[in-house]
């Protein structure tokens, strides 16, 4: 990691910037400076004020107090087009592209200019820029055909074609494999050398520590620290973000797994578009183990979860839960077998926002309840669940939608883990949660594992999968690219499988041999 080639004066400087909304101060006298030629990470939990701050840099909001200076001159942005004009670009977390148009057309849309699209000149510029930075694209591909990583590349190219000096990157690696992330940071380092400045919003502490030059941590709207990355550790950062020590260690005791709880054999299923989403998938999960399914989003995870939960038909293959054939069961019946489902999208699938916390907690029990609901018992049950799982809510009658993401997730866990289910299907359980909530959710899953539950963890967060799982399966293009045991599941091996690179037979044999010789866990450089 190179030291920033700092010019003597910062490129962008914020002094005492404050932004207020009814009832809250989103940014409270925030000051920080951004130098040319650096990657400056912006860290903070949900609600800390990162998005507000960045919105002001991009012209979406104006500060109530304080000043923003660009190269020494005061900067007053009234809209994103002002920001674009002065050379500030935003690379959003979720690409904002028009699916039906080509890559070239999408870039043209953001390149300003007059009434007519000047595609020829733009094409030339685009090809020059993309080869200059090693960002492969084909200008005439339609956006809907591209992968997330490729779409992200287009967003980056938009900024580069414009020649922006300051790039704001919002969670740029959320949809990338480890290898793709490395590729992105190579490009960012090239941009650094050119003197461009980058603001990186990320919650991936390892990534931030590895790739950024300086880090600013926000907490409750205030700057807690603005420091060089060198010398900082993950605990340091999380302590700044949360205000207390957060453990990154997950106490995972060794446990001999019991009998098979979930077994998929040669399962094929189709996606909503009618294409094959799962191909010949075979998996097993046993009591007391966590099988993590890693993979970049869109490789069949969604369909895998739905098949197991009874929401999607199997075209071929068998599904057995606790020795029973489960392929034709409804979600209610599968739930009745002792399966808990933590759905992918907690707000859209997991809770009814307008209904109270207590009513939401009742959802699983309602299936087997009698015709009339005993409100008193319901409230008692809700109270117990809220306490046991430490769901932070003003009360059991609060509408569930008002809770923060982390607490909604805990509500769902509290509801689903009622009755000690034998199989827990957890899909992206900590997606969008801050460090503290993630820690809590992980603890809950590990405890369930200790009590003997089988856990199938489907997650795009590779760190999560690696930390929690006893074994790791990788999904790529609907196929299982291998199931790695414990120590064999290294970042590199999992990462390459996520991109579809399968082990050759020779490597496999070598790997097997090494295991038999009980060599230490660290892998030699050649074994990927």
């Amino acid at each position, binding site marked *: 990691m190179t030291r920033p080639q700092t010019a003597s004066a910062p490129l962008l400087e914020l002094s005492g910037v404050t932004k207020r*909304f*009814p*009832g*809250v101060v*989103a940014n409270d006298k925030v000051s920080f400076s951004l130098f040319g030629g650096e990657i400056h990470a912006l860290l*903070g939990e*949900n*609600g*800390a*004020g*990162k*998005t*507000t701050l960045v*919105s002001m840099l991009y012209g*979406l*909001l104006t500060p109530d107090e304080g000043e923003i200076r660009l190269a020494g001159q005061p900067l007053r942005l009234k809209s994103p087009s002002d920001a674009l004009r002065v050379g500030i670009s935003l690379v959003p*977390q*979720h690409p904002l592209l028009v699916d039906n148009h080509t890559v070239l057309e999408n870039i043209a849309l953001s390149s300003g200019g007059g009434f007519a699209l000047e595609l020829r000149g733009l094409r030339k510029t685009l090809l020059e820029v993309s080869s200059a930075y090693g960002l492969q694209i084909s200008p005439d591909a339609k956006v809907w055909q591209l992968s997330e990583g490729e779409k992200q590349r287009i967003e980056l190219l938009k900024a580069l074609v414009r020649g922006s000096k300051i790039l704001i990157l*919002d*969670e740029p690696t959320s949809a990338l494999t480890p290898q793709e992330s490395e590729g992105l940071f190579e490009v960012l380092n090239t941009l650094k050398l050119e003197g461009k400045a980058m603001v990186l919003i990320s*919650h991936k502490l390892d990534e931030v520590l590895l790739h950024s030059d300086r880090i600013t941590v926000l907490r409750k*709207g205030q700057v807690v620290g603005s420091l060089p990355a060198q010398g900082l550790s993950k605990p340091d950062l999380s302590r700044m973000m949360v205000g207390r020590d957060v453990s990154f260690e997950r106490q995972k005791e060794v446990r001999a797994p019991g009998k098979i709880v979930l077994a998929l054999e040669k399962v094929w299923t189709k996606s909503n578009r009618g294409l094959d989403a799962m191909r010949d998938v075979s998996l097993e999960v046993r009591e007391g183990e966590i099988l993590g399914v890693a993979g970049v989003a869109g490789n069949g995870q969604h369909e895998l979860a739905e098949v197991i*939960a009874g*929401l999607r038909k199997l075209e071929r293959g068998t599904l057995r839960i606790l020795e029973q054939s489960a392929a034709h069961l*409804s*979600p*209610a*019946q599968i*739930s009745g077998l002792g399966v808990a*489902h933590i*759905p992918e999208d907690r*707000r*859209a*699938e*997991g*809770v*009814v*926002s*307008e*209904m109270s916390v207590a*009513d939401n907690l*009742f*959802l*699983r029990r*309602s*299936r087997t*309840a*009698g*015709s*009339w*609901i005993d*409100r008193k018992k319901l409230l008692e049950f809700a109270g117990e669940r809220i306490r046991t799982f430490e769901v932070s809510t003003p009360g059991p009658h609060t*509408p569930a*939608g*008002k809770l*923060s*993401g982390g607490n909604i997730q805990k509500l769902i866990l509290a509801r689903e883990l009622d009755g000690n289910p034998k199989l827990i299907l957890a899909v992206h359980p900590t*997606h*969008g*949660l801050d460090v503290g909530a993630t820690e809590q959710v992980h603890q809950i899953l590990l405890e369930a594992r200790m009590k003997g539950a089988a856990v199938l963890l489907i997650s795009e967060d590779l760190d999560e999968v690696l930390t929690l799982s006893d074994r790791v399966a990788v999904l790529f293009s609907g196929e299982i690219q291998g199931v790695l045991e414990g120590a064999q599941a290294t970042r590199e091996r999992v990462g390459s499988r996520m991109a579809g690179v399968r082990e050759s037979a020779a490597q496999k044999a070598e790997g097997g041999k090494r295991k038999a010789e009980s060599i230490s866990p660290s892998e030699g450089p050649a074994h990927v």
Partner: protein
Amino acid sequence: MFKLEPDLNPPIYKTALVSSVAILLAFAASGLMFWAFGVNPFTAYSEMIKGTFGDSSGLSTIVQRAVPLLLIGSGLALAFRAKFFNIGAEGQMLLGATFAAGVALFVPVSGVLGVVLFFLAGFLGGALWALIPATLRERLGVSEILSSLMLTYVAGYLVKYLIGGPWKGKSLVGYNYTEKFPDWAQLPRLEGTYINWPTLLLALVAAIVLQIVLARSKFGYELQVTGGNPRAAHYAGISSGRVTLLVALISGGLAGLAGAGEVGGLHGRLLDPAQISLGYGFTAIIVAWLTRGNPVYAILTALLMGFVFAGGDVLKVSLSMPFRVVDVMTGLVLFFLIGAEPFLKLKLSSVRVKERASA
């Protein structure tokens, strides 16, 4: 970021305030309409109030109009809560009236048994009519808003056919109606009013029972989940198809009961659709909307719209306002209520940002 955020469960005072302001604005707009007809709005409203609240027959008219509105409105409140937008209550009312008329005219019963069958038939007629859009929705994904609305016209023509054809009264010329119902089917009225108390009773009971069912029964719970988040309902194994069919049956059946009540209690025969329904099925939508999904509040909102109807009669009679003045007023009320939705459903929120913005 600074956002307009959905306001889940807005506090009651906010709901009441926003709804009240909307209604007042609607009345103000109606006032402009009166003025355009050369009637001073203040005169118009004071006449309306005097003629209704200040007059015993006016008061009874409010209640009389409110009864079918309450019956239909409480059922619709339930249906809307489950996100089954039954817009065809008007037609369901007519079918209920028809089935009930069929019993009165052709089934050899009498007395209390007769009245019970009369109402059961009414319920059945309305329920069956509502089952059609519900089935179309569940089996074929057809929007119930369109299908239930279209069926209203079908119902109207069915009635016209019957009263002008097979069921035409023998002793009448000129207008089309059936024979007068036998005496047992002429429902008893409260002294000196046009209110028939069996229907009034049914309406009150329905509103209260539906509220209890909604709040305390498993079905009511499933209904709330289905209406609140159909995906979560599916994931939890709740059959939203079953819920939809049941709310269709209930709301249609209650509309049918209202139809039976009108022909039994007021008209004493089956007559032209326009005279039976008077737009109750449509106005009940407003009644239901105002309750925000709580059937028991329909008692209040039905009285409000009853006042509009009754007051409209005053306007038509004492001030010679055009026949359709009430329709315009109710239309304006609905218009302003819908316009006020954003103020109710949204609130300005602080930086309690949702995760997807990854603040």
